[in-house]
């Protein structure tokens, strides 16, 4: 009699384990399904002028990282040639959000409208030149291919920079060249980020400041390897 009871109990436990296992697998499966992204929507105020998104920005970006249907691009330079120290800034990329890769906007096209005290940012070669009518002309045969490689049209594209400016300019560039504006988000600037995925690059020890640029997934362009459009 005792044995029968133990057999029944074991059988019930076994069945429960199977059911729990199936349930756990289903939960895991459903959590891996990607949630739909809200359409890009520009926030209000001055930040809205830069094109920063209302819903996906510095304070919410952690919820949207590591999506396989998306790419994440930080548009700053490691060291911006502009004299930002003249206006109390830091020309160096002092940190970034894990998951973002750096593709400097000043290498894509000219930077315009910087404060006078800063002087010029990078003034070297660029993939595109902006025309007076707001359109862009490719300077190299590979220019568009480069953009398509780092900003694939079949992915959602999350852009950021220091304050949201370069990111907004990048979105304008991409949309002007035929990208879908509803798949591109200007998530704002690193300076406002207080999330869990911060990677510090700037170090100050005993009053000496250094930068761990080796941590930064950075994509430079060797213009000598490209074919100039004649």
């Amino acid at each position, binding site marked *: 009699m005792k044995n029968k009871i133990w057999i029944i109990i074991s059988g019930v436990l076994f069945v429960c384990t199977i059911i729990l296992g199936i349930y756990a697998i289903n939960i895991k499966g459903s959590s891996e399904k990607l949630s739909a992204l809200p359409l890009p929507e520009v926030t*209000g105020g001055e930040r809205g002028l*830069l094109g920063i998104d209302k819903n996906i920005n510095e304070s919410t970006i952690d919820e949207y990282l590591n999506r396989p249907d998306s790419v994440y691009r930080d548009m700053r330079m490691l060291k911006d040639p502009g004299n930002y120290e003249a206006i109390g800034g*830091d020309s160096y990329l002092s940190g970034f959000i894990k998951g973002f890769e750096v593709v400097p906007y000043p290498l894509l096209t000219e930077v315009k409208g910087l404060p006078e005290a800063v002087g010029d940012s990078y003034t070297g070669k660029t993939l595109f030149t902006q025309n007076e009518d707001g359109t862009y002309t490719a300077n190299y045969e590979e220019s568009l291919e480069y953009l398509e490689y780092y900003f694939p049209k079949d992915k959602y594209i999350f852009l950021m920079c220091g304050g949201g400016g370069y990111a907004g300019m990048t979105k304008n560039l991409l949309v002007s060249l035929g990208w879908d504006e509803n798949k591109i988000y200007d998530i704002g600037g690193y300076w406002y980020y207080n999330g869990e995925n911060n990677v510090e690059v700037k170090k100050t020890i005993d009053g000496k400041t250094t930068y761990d640029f080796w941590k930064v997934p950075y994509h430079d362009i060797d213009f000598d390897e490209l074919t100039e459009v004649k």
Partner: protein
Amino acid sequence: MKKKVVIISLIILIIVAAVILLVVSKKDTSNTDKFYLDREYYNTEGKFMSINDTELESLIDYEKSFVVFTYLPYCTFSVPCDKVFASFMEKYGISFYEITYDDFAKTSSIETVKYAPSVIIYKDGKIVSYLDANEDDDLSKYQDEEMFENWMKEYISIK
């Protein structure tokens, strides 16, 4: 029975007092009465004076009344707001402090003012009003001198 009535009345009184206190304290926080900044900020050349986070905290600790402009050095706008603010300062000979957002974010004021650029009005070391870079309602105050002046005059007296 009498005891119950007394207890209930006491409880009601306490609740009413608490509600009144809450309303009054909220009113105090908003404090829209005009006031004077500390005198050293008037009759000046009307320029920005650079400070860092330590200096700003010190001004707050000493309960000073002053105005601060915090900014990001990296982003430019179609209408440079610092020129709008500078125009007001020069017109009335009032000086503001300026602090980079990087330094500002290290101060206690970051709990209230989340984004740059912003102009923040302090009375006795407390923030009474500020421009919110995320709000459409404040956009015109960043871009139009008259709108900015009207907003400033809501809070501070111009000598």
